[in-house]
């Protein structure tokens, strides 16, 4: 912050006081201190922690080494979990896009009286805690759950299907949890497309599919980009849903990280795993943003 502002002199109505910080900076000081001390500093500290040596009976030992990273990057188990986590994020983002686009279109264009209510519907998974949402899917997907009961009772399945403790269950619940993060940016993007463009395209003889492909898709790319990145990152870093619905079968990076931190008490390893995931995520998002950015420039 620029603290060295000259004190006012001259004919001010009230006697000017010397201040080392102009008064209005005090407004923002608490927020900056909070973020600086309890967010920025601790994030740098994760990096330091990831280079610590492991210890027995304590979170970490004195001294530094790159051993944690070497272990992660040379162990096919860790790399497999990392690949699974990225794949889970990718599939979740893709399914969210396919389900979310039509809903976003509807929400952006509808003149229904119930628009506000529909908004609340879309927001509802966000407003209910993640444990509760996942609990809902537990009731639906478990071996003796609502869906399996219905399938067996209606004679559609001979015996209960395995709908959870596998990737399927985790993906379904992740899509549910993060769909709002896809729909909201899409609504904003589609809402800003002039409806006349659609009418013009149609009147010039373009079919619905052509109008979508040539007009909507390119113009809503910013929303698609924002939504997919958000969902990808969120799904990759989700902890509760993979733990509750994945059982022992689905291991993702956040699950491994928490295991290392809480159960094994191996903080340096946990920190290194978390950073490997974060860096992977950042690199992938960066590449993706470059690619979609090039596409968007093509539109303008």
């Amino acid at each position, binding site marked *: 912050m620029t603290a060295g502002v000259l004190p006012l002199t001259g004919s001010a109505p009230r006697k000017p006081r010397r201040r080392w910080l102009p008064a209005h900076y005090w407004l923002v000081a608490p927020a900056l201190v909070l*973020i600086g001390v309890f967010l920025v500093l601790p994030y740098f500290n994760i990096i330091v922690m990831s280079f610590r040596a492991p210890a027995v009976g304590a979170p970490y030992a004195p001294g530094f080494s790159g051993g944690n990273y070497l272990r992660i990057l040379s162990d096919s188990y860790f790399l497999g979990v990392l690949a699974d986590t990225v794949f889970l994020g990718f599939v979740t983002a893709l399914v969210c896009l396919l389900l979310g686009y039509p*809903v976003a279109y509807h929400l952006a264009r509808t003149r229904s009286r119930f628009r506000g209510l529909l908004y609340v519907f879309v927001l509802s998974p966000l*407003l*209910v*805690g*993640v444990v509760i949402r996942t609990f809902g899917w537990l009731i639906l997907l478990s071996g003796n759950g609502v869906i399996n009961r219905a399938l067996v009772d209606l004679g559609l399945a001979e015996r209960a299907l395995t709908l959870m403790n596998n990737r399927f269950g985790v993906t379904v619940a992740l899509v*549910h949890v993060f769909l709002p993060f896809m729909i*909201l940016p899409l609504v904003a993007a589609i809402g800003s497309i002039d409806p006349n463009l659609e009418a013009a395209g149609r009147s010039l003889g373009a079919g619905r599919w052509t109008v979508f492909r040539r007009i909507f898709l390119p113009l809503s790319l910013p929303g698609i980009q924002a939504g997919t990145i958000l969902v990808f990152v969120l799904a990759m870093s989700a902890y509760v849903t993979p733990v509750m619905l994945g059982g022992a079968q689905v291991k993702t990076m956040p699950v491994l990280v928490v295991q290392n*931190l809480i159960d094994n008490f191996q903080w340096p390893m946990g*920190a290194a795993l978390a950073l490997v995931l974060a860096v992977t995520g950042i690199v992938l998002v960066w590449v993706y943003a470059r690619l979609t950015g090039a596409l968007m420039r093509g539109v303008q």
Partner: protein
Amino acid sequence: MSAGRARRGAWLRRPFRALPALFVAAVYVFLLAPILLIVLLSLNAGEFLAFPPQGLSLRWYGALFGNEPFMRAIGTSLWVATIAAAVSTAVGTAAALFFVRHAGRMRETLRMLVMMPLMLPEILTAIALLFFVYATGIGTQTMFGLVVGHVLVTLPYAFMNVASSLYNFDRSIEEAARSLGARPFTVFRRVTLPLIKPGIITGALFAFIVSFDLFNMSLLLKGIGMTTLPIQLFDYLRWDFDPTAAAVSSLSIVMTFTIILFVDRVIGLRSLRFG
């Protein structure tokens, strides 16, 4: 009337036209189903979390109120959420005032900084804070680390809501008060504050909801005897799977939607900023 019949006729002749609408409706059902199911099954008279419920009763709410760990966890969550909402609203309101009125060229940087807890994965922030409170000796014996974590995550909600109410603010009203001799603090208390009150209340309520539901932060930063409701529910579901869990979840859901309804009725959801 005739127009309606004509439309219905077209619908019958071209059933494909109805497909998009059906798809959208199905997605809405998908979004709501798990949540509605929990509320429905919490009223189950039977022993199990089975659908359809075997009669309606409030027996599981009775079981919930007799469940000591759940009641204590609800108390802890209410307490933590209240403190976190109060602190983040105060800090966020002040920061929003600076952001809208004085930030100048720092504007984008400041916005990014304050919104950062929303952009960063909650679990990563929780890990960072865990290491930090350990390294600084703050530890998890007190609620401090837990509350700071909740404040960080809820700050963006308070900030966004107050900032958006400051955007459509007619500053000439403040000028008028000042020219009539009001001191800066009086202007703030008597003019500014009442006008941005809707934004502050919305922000505080959302901060409260978000904090009440926060899981990852609490998982890593809770000390002994600081089990919040989401943590308690998570632990409970590992061993038990009965409608008590549905009852406590329903209470939380109903609380949230009551708050949303209140915001919508009294302040208007249009002022809502979520993310």
